[in-house]
């Protein structure tokens, strides 16, 4: 199981700008390294990260091999309604890791 750490304020006032942070435990193997036996270690990175809020995409990023292990992103969005934020990390090969958090807006 892949470990993720997301931080979303539990509550906010409508219209507030809220800070959101997300981190995932991932080696971000660049594909440029060789193993102890000299063979190239295949590339395996998270290449896409998205965040949806109430089903609508509010943030997305493409990651490249220069991004270090355990990538961390922080961004902000505007609190509109009480809903679920869904975070998705897509890995080379198509594996998808997801996490969710709720925000209550009044």
């Amino acid at each position, binding site marked *: 199981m892949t*470990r993720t*750490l997301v*931080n979303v304020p539990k509550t906010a006032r409508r219209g507030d700008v809220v800070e959101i*942070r997300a*981190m*995932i*435990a991932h*080696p*971000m193997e660049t594909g440029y390294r060789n193993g102890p036996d000299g063979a190239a270690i295949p590339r395996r990175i998270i290449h896409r990260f998205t965040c949806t809020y109430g089903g609508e995409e509010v943030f997305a990023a493409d990651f490249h091999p220069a991004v*270090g*292990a*355990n990538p*961390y992103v*922080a961004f902000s969005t505007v609190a509109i309604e009480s809903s679920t934020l869904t975070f998705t990390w897509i890995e080379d090969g198509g594996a998808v890791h997801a996490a969710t958090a709720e925000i209550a807006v009044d």
Partner: protein
Amino acid sequence: MRPRPRLRWTEVVRARAVVLALALAAPAAAEPVPITPAERRSGITFAGPQTQGLQADDTANPGMLFVLDGAQLWQAPAGSAQRACADCHGAAEHSMRGVAARYPAFDAASGAALDLSGRINACRTRHQDAPQLASEEPGLLALAAFVGFQSRGLPLAPPQDPPMAAVRKEGRRLYETRMGQLRLSCAECHDALWANRLGSSPITQGQAGAYPIYRLEWQGLGSLQRRMRACMSGVRAEPFAPGAPEFIALEAYLAERGAGLPVETPGVRP
């Protein structure tokens, strides 16, 4: 603020040689002097604001990923006994609070000092019928980080029993012994030159309260022994084997010379 000249590993030898030469006139200054309790400073105080910010913020500190892994392992039945740490120790917030602050500690059953990882491995073999986890194995680092985290903010309080006093004495002897092709002791750098820089990085006091740490250069979590191995390789000495009594003795002395500094686990270092 003391001046901060930049040194390379080999130049440290020369810097110390100069100190030694000057010391011929005043022999009392020849050997590095232990840092006084009032002067003790965690390595994080030497780090840049970004690294300090990462360590201070649990939602940005990558070490927290491992603490969360450890929390899960704490609950997971393991070994042929199929018992979890939690089955015997209950909620770690209570049972493990303060434990890391007093390790390494003496273990009567084996008649030897154990560091926190050694203690966790002892529970695996004795109480879970599970094999030991190798040093730097993610599961062991995660459990050590999780148990260490329960003591965060508490002062390092090494136990004062006679067997540990003997271990610490041995640790201090090793700490002050010159080693490797560069013929430098731990004390030459961490007691005598801690206000200086080695290349671009500050030489800190070599305090150990933040371990295991997330080191940005490693892009992962690592143990105190891994850090000490890097220092030993730096002076071109053959590092002790993982878990060797020499490392435990050094850890015990590091705890003593850092007594009173807070546990910071999981620390972040550049």
